């Protein structure tokens, strides 16, 4: 049964690839905004199948990659406070800060633990009331509703020892910033399907309206991505610039109202700094006034300080699609997954890590 489905998949892919080839005329650059797409494109070998004139470039949609050095340093500073336990997603452990990393801090005895869900933070805070638990909240619209739910639950259960280092970011403002800077030439966007499960389609309408560009909200299977590419090329051929949904089996136009409401209740947007992209208006989420007593940066008084990116590291430009990992002189020389210099080599969704792992030749 499974076997049959997969053979079918190969057939469908080759039909779609033929149609894609027929639509490519001249040089076309599409940006896959999200790291999950980047990895899926590599894994399925899509890059090796696309016609020459069609270029896929990776965008800023890797939450670990866009977290600036200053934020890593802030997490390290928090972890150094007595009685503090810092909880983080795994990939952040190895991102170099200015002079240390969370991994190195753990090796010298700080209590830093890897969790996979914000709800783990709740459990840990409840189980260890004598410790102050700080959750390093990193992620896009996909993780923020769960973080908001954890915050609300902590409030309901009167858990007083749980704090957030808010470093969540929003995708549409980043795309707007990329387009406004006009530094990178993009014909259209492969937009992340899972983000739109939460936010729907409307937040992207400015791409078509203000910049006359196209976008397709796309799923993560190989065939989804091929179909997304095909839909973008169709638009170009027909002279349209619209936001369309390929991932219709899960994405609703209006998104997930419940998730949006809980995010809105707990968080408000603020002007956040992104690695490579600088400060982008209303592109981050921070706790609303009513929840400020859980804001680790305020409670422990560790304000954000700007820090320089590691010298020579091109992550900032790679995240904007201005450079490719192979353009970086550190790629696979000084910067490897074992000894990463920049976050794009650390995160499993980073484009340098993907280039390294799946082979630059493909």
């Amino acid at each position, binding site marked *: 049964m499974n076997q049959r489905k997969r053979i079918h998949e190969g057939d469908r892919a080759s039909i779609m690839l033929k149609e894609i080839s027929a639509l490519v005329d001249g040089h076309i650059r599409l940006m896959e905004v999200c790291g999950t797409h980047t990895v899926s494109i590599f894994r399925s070998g899509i890059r090796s199948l696309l016609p020459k004139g069609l270029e896929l470039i990776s965008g800023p949609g890797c939450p670990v990659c866009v977290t600036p050095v200053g934020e890593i340093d802030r997490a390290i500073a928090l972890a150094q406070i007595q009685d503090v336990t810092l909880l983080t997603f795994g990939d952040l452990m190895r991102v170099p800060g200015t002079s240390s990393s969370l991994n190195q801090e753990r*090796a010298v005895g700080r209590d830093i633990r890897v969790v996979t*869900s914000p709800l783990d933070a709740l459990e840990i805070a409840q189980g260890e009331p004598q410790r102050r638990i700080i959750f390093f909240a990193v992620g896009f619209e996909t993780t923020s509703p769960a973080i908001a739910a954890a915050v609300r639950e902590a409030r309901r259960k009167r858990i007083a020892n749980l704090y957030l280092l808010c470093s969540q970011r929003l995708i549409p403002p980043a795309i707007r910033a990329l387009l406004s800077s006009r530094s990178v030439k993009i014909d259209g966007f492969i937009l992340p399907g899972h983000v739109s499960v939460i936010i729907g389609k409307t937040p992207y309408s400015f791409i078509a309206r203000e910049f006359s560009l196209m976008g397709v909200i796309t799923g993560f299977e190989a065939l989804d991505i091929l179909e997304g590419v095909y839909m973008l090329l169709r638009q170009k051929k027909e002279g349209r610039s619209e936001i369309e949904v390929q991932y219709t089996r899960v994405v609703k136009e209006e998104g997930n109202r419940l998730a949006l409401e809980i995010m809105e209740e707990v968080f408000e947007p603020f002007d956040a700094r992104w690695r490579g992209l600088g400060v982008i208006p209303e592109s981050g989420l921070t706790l609303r006034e009513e929840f400020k007593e859980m804001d680790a940066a305020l409670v422990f008084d560790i304000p954000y300080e700007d820090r320089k990116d590691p010298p020579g590291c091109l992550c900032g430009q790679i995240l904007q699609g201005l450079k490719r990992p192979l353009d970086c002189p550190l790629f696979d020389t000084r910067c490897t997954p074992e000894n990463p210099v920049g976050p794009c080599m650390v995160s499993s969704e980073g484009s340098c890590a993907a280039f390294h792992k799946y082979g630059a030749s493909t």
Partner: protein
Amino acid sequence: MKQSKILLAHGAGGKLSHDLVKELFLPFLENDILCTLDDSAIIPTEGPRLAFTTDSYVVKPLFFPGGDIGRLSICGTVNDLAMAGAAPLGISASFILEEGFPTQELERIIVSIQQAAREAGVMVVAGDTKVVERGAAEGLFITTSGVGIIREGVEIAGSHALPGDSVIINGPIGDHEAGVLLARGEFSLKGEIESDCAPLSGLVQAMLDACSDIHVLRDPTRGGLATVLWEIANASKVGVIVEEERIKVKTEVRGMCDLLGFDPYYLANEGKLVAFVPQQEAERVLDAMKADPLGRESAVVGRVVDENPGKVLLKTRIGGHRLLEPLSGEQFPRIC
């Protein structure tokens, strides 16, 4: 060594483990036998050649669906012997016990060792126990060593793959690591995946009965299938092409990988082997494998080529291709 301290990733079986052995151990302990870096050392004697191997087991949790640290410690060592084509002669088992460890659990583990040894047709012929103070070990660590005999005419090594060889695997990959990770309960995921932990000595002897000219055998433990194929491609200076469509991965393992962003080609197995055999012998070997309970799902998954020596190419389901590089930089928790 680049790093001044040992990191968890040095034990993950990937690039860092490789570097650790090459940069720190080999410069001091180098000799012709050790330097092959095969699963077992092959020691020439006046009589039959002996295969000798040793391995430590630090899995967490100690008990998991499909096995426990005891079963693992027998299967792992028996399989390392089997990958040299050796039939196991005897095994030693050495225990480091943490003060306070429940004897009832220890008994369960020893019974499981007995059972696995029986399945493998081998006896535990020597042993040792040490107890360390609470906190100095996590429950229980086991080290086993094994000796086996290699029959006349069998010449198996990681460096013996030849262009034209067929690549065979004895079933779906990733079950062990997926099962252990799930059993750790760290991912808030429900469900159970059974480890494939099993002794492969019987299967290998059946394969050798069908064809004594097997070129390479490897068990894809830490680092998974991708790392093992890469090691063979490099040791033999050949290219390897495998097809995604032919490599089985159970639906639940694939589902877990999708959720966590893991790649099944890098997950550890404890009851799987990869065989490189001359193409004209492949059918015969495959038939012998399918007749064994541990080989029922065996399949040819790829072939060896002249081109791109040292590289492993995966043909994807949609007809594209990508390289399979060795496991690198990832820090998987302790799984074996």
